[in-house]
């Protein structure tokens, strides 16, 4: 698959098939993703990829545990800003409408939110964490690496869903993985598997602002 096709066909998948993901494929993806750039070549990223019994065990724990307080990091502050709130509501409305979940059906919405902790049925889950000392530019480096992985997965016919929601259970996840809470911050999960192509939650129209909304050209 070429780059543009990978970029355009990647979307956050929220219903996966149970087809297992071969280890060899993931090893190939992770090996190539090393070439993602980072300031001063820090390569600040770290991850564990779970499948099978260790994944099920983690999911079972998350489903019965209330979200941690305080949060691992603040991931919804920008939502208080009107512009971001509008974008969040836009994608939320499109998604719930596609699933046939009404605006006021909070039980159905809560239920769907919980499926985050089962990674929407994905057979593999990448859990990303890194050294707490890393600042905003290194978070950007980690983002580059994660997007590199998601695009390489498309090249292998695989799909993904990045899940910052899993940070609600950051300490639980680190404990499960044997990662030090003192030295490492947990960032996010990436659900990995094959998309259920017919499921409406994977097919609603996604909004993006036009390029002119984010980018200006000078001197051309």
């Amino acid at each position, binding site marked *: 698959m*070429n*780059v*543009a096709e990978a*970029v*355009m066909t990647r979307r956050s998948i929220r219903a996966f098939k149970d087809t297992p993901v071969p*280890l060899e494929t*993931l*090893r190939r993806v*992770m090996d190539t*993703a*090393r*070439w993602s750039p980072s300031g*001063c*070549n*820090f*390569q600040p990223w*770290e*991850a*564990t*990829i*779970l*499948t*099978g019994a*260790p994944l099920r065990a983690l999911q079972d724990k998350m489903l019965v545990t209330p979200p941690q307080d305080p949060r691992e*990091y603040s*991931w919804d502050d*920008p939502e208080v*800003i009107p512009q971001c709130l509008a*974008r*969040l509501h*836009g994608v939320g409305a499109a998604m719930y409408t596609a699933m046939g979940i009404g605006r006021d059906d909070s039980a159905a919405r809560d239920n769907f939110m919980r499926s985050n902790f089962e990674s929407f049925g994905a057979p593999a889950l990448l859990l990303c964490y890194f050294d707490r000392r890393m*600042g*905003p*530019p290194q*978070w*950007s480096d*980690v*983002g*580059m*690496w*994660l*997007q*590199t992985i*998601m*695009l*390489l997965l498309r090249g292998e016919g695989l799909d993904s869903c*990045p899940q910052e929601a899993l940070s609600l259970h950051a300490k639980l996840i680190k404990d499960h993985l044997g990662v030090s809470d003192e030295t490492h911050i947990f*960032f*996010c999960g990436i659900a990995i598997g094959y998309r259920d192509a017919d499921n409406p939650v994977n097919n609603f129209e*996604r909004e993006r*602002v*036009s*390029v002119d909304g*984010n*980018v*200006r*050209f*000078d*001197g*051309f």
Partner: protein
Amino acid sequence: MTALMSVSEAVASRRSIRRFLPDPVERAVLERVLAKAQRAPSGGDTQPWNAVIVTGAELARISAAIIELTKTAPLGAGVEYPIYPAEMDGRYAAQRMAVGQVMFTAAGIARGDRAARFAQMRENWNSFGAPVQLFTYTPSYMGKPQWSDIGMWLQTVMLLLREEGLDSCAQEIWAMYGEAMKGLLGIPEGHIFFCGMAIGRRDPEAAINTFPVPRIPFEDVVRFEGF
């Protein structure tokens, strides 16, 4: 449009280019790349990236202003965020040193030749000869997860550029003069300047573009369980 490129080919052939050919870059190509890059993901669909893309006389004006500023403030001025963590040890310090060493060796610069190292560093302000700069900024209220989103977008841009036969060099160094950059670019109040990205065609002969870039084995940072 040049031949299509596989994702893995784009990832593996992207490298920070530090000597560009002077060939201009068409605006239409950049618009095509940026339109596709809007599909990069972001938490809550925030799409926190913003950029000014600059070329020609406008880029020359910005470069000249920053070079002037380096004379009075060689260690930076109006820095808005720490480009690197204050103390980095272990593998981070080692990796930083490793890439510096192999790069300066390739450029034929001896370890103790501070003047030559400084001259090579100054090439940043000329965008290493690239005809185009993409300067990125974001609202100041954005948190670390949104910086990750911006990174996803930046890498999406760099990989799409590869498919167009173009190369890039992400340059956080411009943030040494963050406040001045905002003034020069007319970036509104309430925003933080993040980085530059030199865009053009690589000089394939230059040693500084061909040295083997060190990366740690993925097994050092990625574990598999349950497979």
